[in-house]
């Protein structure tokens, strides 16, 4: 399992405030020549990682951390550069993904599992294990709107873990359930890492990163400023 990010850049088009007529907007839409302001979110980012490590990604709000994860996951297309991933990428960017409140937990597990790229047979085989891991055995046929947000998060995490990710992208979603479940999920991530999974972890919780990451990527205004040991966190703290 490995991931290599080479010279990735990404621009967002920001609509300008200038008033443009509907006609010129339509013409612009079809000719791709509408007046645009561009904003560089990622500038020439490169790094790579092999087997089993947790990379913490730090940086201020709006520095491009989430965009980087989305480019790696294939949700955004990069303008230049490539992402080479050898293994299954599972993005955990939001923990409320795809759950449909008016359907039962059983239906939701099948739906989310498929959205994560599992086969129906795989889900069937893992079903009881997913439910058990999320500690929701008593609620299999309960509609999801009756779940607390903590229960939903546990469920999402459990499904993601059962997808057997090779590369796991986590964006600020580490407030899963209560203290006990949080410990359990951390243990689970460690177990995955020991099996070779690469985890990219975006977080503002610097203590958490210091404790668990082997390596830190520091992003500022879309550029990779530093790539190194956890000592970087201290430098980052001083600057902030």
């Amino acid at each position, binding site marked *: 399992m490995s991931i290599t990010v080479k010279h990735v850049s990404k621009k*967002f*088009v920001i609509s300008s405030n200038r008033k443009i007529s509907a006609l010129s907007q*339509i013409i612009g*839409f079809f000719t791709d020549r509408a007046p645009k302001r561009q904003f560089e979110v990622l500038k020439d980012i490169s790094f790579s990682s092999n087997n089993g490590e947790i990379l913490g990604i730090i940086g201020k709000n709006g520095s491009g951390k989430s965009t980087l994860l*989305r480019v790696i*996951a*294939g*949700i*955004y*297309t990069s303008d230049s550069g490539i992402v080479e991933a050898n293994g299954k*990428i599972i*993005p955990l*960017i*939001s923990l*409320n*993904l*795809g759950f*449909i409140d*008016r*359907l039962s937990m059983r*239906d939701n597990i*099948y*739906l989310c599992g*498929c*959205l*994560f*790229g*599992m*086969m*129906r047979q795989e889900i069937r085989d893992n079903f009881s294990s997913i439910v058990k891991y999320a500690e929701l055995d008593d609620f299999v046929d309960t509609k999801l709107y009756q779940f607390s947000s903590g229960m939903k998060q546990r469920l999402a995490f459990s499904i993601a873990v059962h997808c057997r990710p090779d590369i796991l992208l986590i964006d600020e979603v580490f407030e899963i359930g209560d203290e006990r479940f949080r410990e359990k999920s951390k243990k689970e991530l460690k177990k995955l890492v020991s099996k070779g999974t690469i985890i990219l972890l975006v977080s503002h919780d610097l203590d958490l990163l210091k404790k668990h990451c082997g390596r830190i990527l520091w992003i500022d205004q879309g550029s990779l400023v530093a790539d190194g040991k956890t000592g970087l966190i201290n430098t980052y703290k001083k600057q902030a």
Partner: protein
Amino acid sequence: MKYKKNIDLIVQLTITSFKQRYEGSFLGFFWYLLNPVLTFLFLYFIFVNLLGSNIENYALYLLLGIIQWNFLSLAAGSSMKIIMVNSLLIKSLSFKRETLIISIVLMAFLSNIIELMIFFVILIFSVETSFWILLFPMILIFQFLFALGLAFFLSSVLLFFRDLENIWNFVSKVWWFATPVFYSVSSNSNFIYLFNLFNPMYHLIESSRSILVYGKSPDIYSLLAFILMSLISFAFGYLVFRHLKPKFAEMI
């Protein structure tokens, strides 16, 4: 393997949209039938004395028209906002975007099949069917392609051009009145007839009526026109969708 995963996803999404559509409603599944039946009864009582009096087998003529139109309207209406409604999903996962559209159109298609099965029961008891009925599955396939192309187009363009929803609401209303669902057009060269030569829904409904209600061969030019229009709709819709797809996550 990847292929199979996407099929599994489409199946699961279709099941979900089926369940979601009627979950929690008291009559549940029966709404599938109630909706076309109520429209039918309403139009039948209004028009049987006005317009339909000179149309042979008007009840079947009307019912089939409503069922076919319902399919298009359900497929287009429910797929149009599907990307927008699922913005969170699109922004946080990288599954094939096409699966969302295909599953919604499939949901409408299966509802259509259920309605058609009821129609067949009535049909068998009221008129003599002919071997031309064997042509109908082929029409269904192209009907699916036609709606799919339209759904691809509407759902993707809507993200970039939000006015499309209002435009579509108006256009579909005009389209419904211009299509001979509850009346008939004869081939004299009036305005409505000329319009309908370019109307895929006219060709679809007319061909289906010939085959099912009147047990005769469909007008070959009409059938070919519909097939051609479905292929164009599918190809054009999909190309537009594919072109716009990479920008979806940034637009919602």
